[in-house]
């Protein structure tokens, strides 16, 4: 008892065991991301009114990220952009995960179906990812819908590979053989035996898919495909900032990009720490 009291005071996290520390990291990063989304939704358009009296201001206490050539506060713009990025990333990851689940279950159904899934995975991985997103979003007709579709339709292959490997391994298990001998249908085995085992893996895969989806969305937007210039997306903010680089307005590019990096890192951290909880072997590092 007494030792526990003593250790709590050692360092910031020193007194916590790995379990508590992991939970704390997951909790606080999730909270940060939630705060970004909520505030971006409730901020609305008002703070983004153009104000030519205060254009191109360097970062200050009043405008921590500076202002752009129309006098808009970059902090607010960045916040809105991040919110949009997280929402787009979330939507795209969810669709990709759904595709993974469907294809994963399909591949457990039989040999032909499995080769089809494997073939589809190989096909999607054979074109450079970014080019594929561009191609799909053009095919859809561009715009926000194009970007979301492009990102959503291209992030499932790697997770599907993992799920396929896991499914294959599960199918060699004794209880699945027994189920089969008892005359259970393939669908019954897939949904009752295989899917529940895959849930943690898929959940983790989805969270780790988030940062990829967000970065790809930002990249495609940066290149000029998809979202219209009026949307406060990070890709658009950075693409605009290129025009003002030689004028020395570094803050236009620096802070929005850094914020995006932090958001991506936050998702990575949540994913990694959840991974530790699910598979404690990694925690020994």
């Amino acid at each position, binding site marked *: 008892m007494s030792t526990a009291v003593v250790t709590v005071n050692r360092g910031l996290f020193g007194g916590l*065991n790995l*379990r508590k520390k*992991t939970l704390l990291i997951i909790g606080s990063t999730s909270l940060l991301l939630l705060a970004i989304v909520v505030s971006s939704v409730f901020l609305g358009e008002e703070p983004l009114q153009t104000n030519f009296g205060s254009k191109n201001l360097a970062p200050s206490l009043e405008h921590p990220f500076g202002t752009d050539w129309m006098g808009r506060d970059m902090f607010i713009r960045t916040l809105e952009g991040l919110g949009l990025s997280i929402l787009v990333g979330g939507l795209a990851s969810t669709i990709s995960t759904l595709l993974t689940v469907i294809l994963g279950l399909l591949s457990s159904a039989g040999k032909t179906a499995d080769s089809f899934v494997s073939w589809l995975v190989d096909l999607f991985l054979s074109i450079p990812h970014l080019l594929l997103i561009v191609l799909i979003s053009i095919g859809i007709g561009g715009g926000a819908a194009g970007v979301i579709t492009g990102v959503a339709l291209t992030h499932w292959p790697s997770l599907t590979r993992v799920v396929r490997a896991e499914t294959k391994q599960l199918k060699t298990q004794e209880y699945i053989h027994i189920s089969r001998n008892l005359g259970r249908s393939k669908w019954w085995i897939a949904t009752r035996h295989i899917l529940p085992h895959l849930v943690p893996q898929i959940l983790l895969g989805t969270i780790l898919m988030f940062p990829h989806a967000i970065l790809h969305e930002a990249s495609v937007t940066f290149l000029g495909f998809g979202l219209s210039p009026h949307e406060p997306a990070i890709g658009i903010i950075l693409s605009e900032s290129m025009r003002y680089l030689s004028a020395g307005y570094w803050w236009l590019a620096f802070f929005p990009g850094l914020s995006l990096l932090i958001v991506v890192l936050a998702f990575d951290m949540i994913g990694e720490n959840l991974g530790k*909880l*699910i598979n*404690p072997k990694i*925690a*020994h590092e």
Partner: protein
Amino acid sequence: MGNKAEINPKKELSTGLETVAGDRKKTEALLTVEDLSLSFTQYASGLRQTELKVISNLSIQAYKGEILAIVGSSGSGKSLLAHAILGILPLNAKLDGKMEYDGKKLTQERKKEMRGKEIALIPQAITYLDPLMKISNQVIGSVEKEKESIMKKLQREVFQRYGLKPEVERMLPHELSGGMTRRVLVSTAVISSSKLIIADEPTPGLDDKTLNETLSYFKDMADKGCAVILITHDIEAALKISHKIAVFYAGTVLEVANVEDFKNNGENLRHPYTRALWNALPQNKFQAIKGHQPMQDEVIDGCIFYDRCSKKKAICSRGIPQLKQVNGGVVRCNNAS
């Protein structure tokens, strides 16, 4: 109080063992392990920290010119004993107890100096060879440039002695047959001219001919004055060549018996478990003992064999029995006398 009670029997024990050894050779033990305990810190699902005790209160002694077999069932932590002696345990391992080599304390620093020179390990499988390195380089090991040609000559001699053809030198591990692998692994120890040889499960999956051949290598080493520790689950193989048998059970040694004690119905054996092992052999009564070893995370207060013992008494469930010197061997049992 408690301390005193624990120290006394040990003093008796060590003098006792010396007289036992004295019958064979008037030397001191080359390696003494006393009250060794080994545990691992681990994380279970959800990151709950747990402590896993693998070895507890283990004591053995190895003498020059003798083969000590450590016999126990597979997966009971015997290999970790070898790793503990060599100081190559993973970082999350916690080691307690005393080890002496050649009369001096065996610290981690000394282990680092000794291994490969004084103490050699003969590993159990081909996975202990680098899959991408030629056999000759692996047998010779890492040596200075100027010593290379001498070592090369030595390696050729050893290979010739063990009937390994010259082309084996240039092979990669996956090209070796089972028998060749065994001989290559033994060569790595022989070339090092170590005094203490620890062979970790050197016999599984060998046919009778290769088995006897492999055992003869160890006999050879002991005859040349090495102390050999043979870690195995195969009691029959151990009985063929060893001088003493240490019976390993659930992380500790229950009895160290002389090989001569294994005869008839095992009436000379001191521990019920050793007797049970002996009687389980096909050429004896072929009677399997009921139950299973306690799990590593089970906490047992009392004799570790209590649950399966046919002669248990009330005292056996309270406190670990002291190590006693009985009839030229040692045993951890309240009933033995």
